[in-house]
């Protein structure tokens, strides 16, 4: 994939910042996406739309807190198609894998900034920063998780088990 970066240089961006609980009275992704990240950056949704940002970069322990799957779902529905952080909180991590939102654990986020254009080859574990002409090896997920990722999420993976 090729996409443009929006970056928040903040550790421990928690699920209450990603989607505040006051909006969890509904589980409609489009409704949730309207409020994605609003307690952190009121203009996030607008920026993603007008600037066509596709890759969200943040610092470590992204998605800590609640188990709410509405957090990665809201990010996905806002138009973001890939997440990059040095580390993710574990329930957020599995939720992202399960709903088919690509996620990359990448320690050197200092090499990425807002408006950079990245070209990511997930299968080869390669990431190219087109804006700086730098190239990085990125950690591939273990083969067990690759099966869920290539099924585009846990639902399809599970359906195959039933068949």
């Amino acid at each position, binding site marked *: 994939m090729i996409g443009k970066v929006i970056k928040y240089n903040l550790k*421990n961006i*928690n699920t*209450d*910042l990603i989607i*505040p*609980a*006051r909006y*969890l*009275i*509904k*589980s409609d992704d489009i409704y949730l996406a309207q409020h994605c990240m609003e*307690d952190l950056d009121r203009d996030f949704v607008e920026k993603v739309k007008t600037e066509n940002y596709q890759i969200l970069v943040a610092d*470590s*322990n992204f998605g*800590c*807190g*609640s*188990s*709410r*799957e*509405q957090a990665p*779902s809201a990010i996905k529905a806002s138009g973001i198609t890939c997440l990059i952080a040095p*580390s993710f*909180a*574990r*329930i957020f991590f*599995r*939720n992202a894998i*399960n*709903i088919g939102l690509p996620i990359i654990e990448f320690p050197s986020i200092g090499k990425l900034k807002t408006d950079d254009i990245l070209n990511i080859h997930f299968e080869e574990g390669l990431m190219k920063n087109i804006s700086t002409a730098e190239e990085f090896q990125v950690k591939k997920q*273990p083969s*067990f*998780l690759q099966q*869920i990722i290539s099924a585009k*999420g*846990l*639902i399809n993976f*599970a*359906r195959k*088990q*039933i*068949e």
Partner: protein
Amino acid sequence: MMQIMGLTITEKILRDHCQNKKAVAGDYIMAEIDKCLANDITAPIAIEVFEKVIEDSKAEVFESSKIVLIPDHFTPNKDVASAAQCKILRDFATRHNITNYFEVGRGGIEHCLVPEQGLVNPGEVFIGADSHTCTYGALGAFSTGVGSTDLGVAMALGKCWLKIPESIKFIYSGRLNEWVSGKDLILYTIGEIGVDGATYKAMEFTGDTIKGLPMADRFTMCNMAIEAGGKSGIIEPDKITTSYLEAFKKLEDCFYSSDKDAEYHDIINFECANIEPQIALPHSPDNVKSISEVHNMKIELDQVVIGSCTNGRLADLRNIAKILKHRKINKKLRCIIIPGTQKIYLKAIERGYIESFVNAGAIISTPTCGPCLGGHMGVLAEGEKALSTTNRNFRGRMGHVNSEVFLSSPVVAAASAIKGYITSPEYL
């Protein structure tokens, strides 16, 4: 020759719940689950996922008695939208004959209710679409929070993918100081290791202090493992576990323990003689200070909340009743007390605790998660400060994005409700 290492309690339980009988920490497994749980926020999505998974097949829920549904977050229904969410659970429970659906008035806060109903046993694998599902490690079960898709799939297959976690062993030694509880031990621990200090890891709580710790405090400690990023918290079952489980006639043959030569990611020792009551300051559960330091800061409060899946148990109410009896809540603040379940509520009435609370000027709420997540029943205005016995104090957690939440044990919260600022019962 490779040395064969011993196993942790967590490795043993998970190995016994999957097909790979050689699985160890780091391995991915499809775990057979004993129970799965969801609430009014996570179940509606899980139910949608379940329908998609079984679509076009004649498949049913894997075992209706192993599914637990508890509407507790926005209940009693706070508005039309949340009423619709709760209705999805209710209808699903009826359609699939799920007997472990707990209606408002006959249930309570999930992590207080599940053990009380005998729905979790030592040695089991319990997953819940709620991050505080890690609570049940207090009984020597492997229990962990998952997402709604995990839960929807689990309701169809009875299985959940898991990576067997490495463990960190926390050894607590010595007698607890006066007014120090399990809440203070876990806040202290999170303060020491940070909110990502145990990410992906099982937190195994052990040592002579834990051996003497009452069940309610054990639940509190395991409940907050997630606030350090932990996958689970776990305590080896012992005599205290046995006496707790006697009510449910559970056998001890499901008691697992770690081998002496088990491999740990880390072993951390804490001397309890050094631990005072702890406060987590805004906006993170690891921003922890001792009460003597916070007392001197004279932090004035607008609200005190006592309850939640962390500290809404009968023992918590008993401890605060001793403090609130014959005293008055400070006129500058509101004190909201929330019994964890209907059973706890009733016992608190029978024992006179509720009368003491009402006489003191506190308000008693029906069992609900309500204010903990800024849902309802005690939401904060801009600039307000609350001291709460809940588990998270992220920015905006209890209401306005510019409100502040401090975390403490119930006795510290009760003493502070009387004084009007954050203090210890020692200073009453």
